[in-house]
């Protein structure tokens, strides 16, 4: 019970604010070249998604029922194949068509 208490939401909120402020501030200040900023944005986004899953949705490898974790893991694999595959095909097509 205690692990899903007030602390969880406050820690999650604080981490999410930090992980949002960093990319927004860097983009506002144009602090880095675009190619590096994209990497910062992507890393901050992935970390923030994990923060939300852990502190707001309370996804936990030990306490969350196994079925729920399986559903999430299966979806993650599915997304990786579908989104990664689609982008791979489309980017490849794009670069070949513009030649």
């Amino acid at each position, binding site marked *: *019970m205690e692990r899903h*208490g*007030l602390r*969880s*939401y*406050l820690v*999650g*909120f604080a981490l*999410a*604010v930090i992980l*949002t402020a960093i*990319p*927004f501030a860097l*983009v*506002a200040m144009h602090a880095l070249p*675009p190619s590096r*900023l*994209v990497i910062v*944005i*992507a890393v*901050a*986004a992935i970390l*923030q*998604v994990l923060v*939300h*899953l852990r502190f*707001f*949705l309370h996804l936990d490898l030990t306490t969350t*029922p196994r*079925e*729920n974790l399986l*559903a*999430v893991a*299966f*979806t993650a694999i*599915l*997304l990786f194949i*579908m*989104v990664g595959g*689609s*982008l791979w095909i*489309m980017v490849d097509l794009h670069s070949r068509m513009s030649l």
Partner: protein
Amino acid sequence: MSVMAPERETSSDAYQQRALGFWLYLMSDAVIFALLFATYATMVANTDGGPSGKSLFSLSNAALETVLLLASSTTFGFASLSSRTGNRSAVLGWLLITFLLGLGFVGLEIREFLGMIRAGAGPDRSGFLSAFFTLVGTHGFHVSMGLTWILIMSGQVFLKGLSVPVTSRLFRLGLFWHFLDIAWVGIFSIVYLPGLL
């Protein structure tokens, strides 16, 4: 007390089963969002000589929307905590604050959409804008449905009190609301921030 214990266990079993069903729904929703993200990434350069994200997006507007949605996710968490201690008026208060924050988010989004459409950058202008309105609009529609659900659940908490079924529904509404915040993290990280580089 000893009579209460097994009863509580059965109800928490049913609770978990429904939570699993709802997780499955959320994951199917995640697939929808992910494919809209993939479509957007494919279409983002296809502006047909029209405006691109750089001239259309506002960093401050996206930041404000992010703050509203993140704050609403946290206040919903407070509503969930209050429901656990059986504090009905606190639940209603936090749900109201969550609703207002979410309403502010939808308001900002509608204002942004109308401004873009008036400037001739509607969904019919280019492939980029079709993909943009579909992705961001789908999220905004989800948030609007979430707002409706918050109103319905506030009514149930008010009329029926924090009974086991009501608390269980409130829990699933929480999953939905927190999930929408995750989808928004994807939107500002894939649409707004890269568009403004």
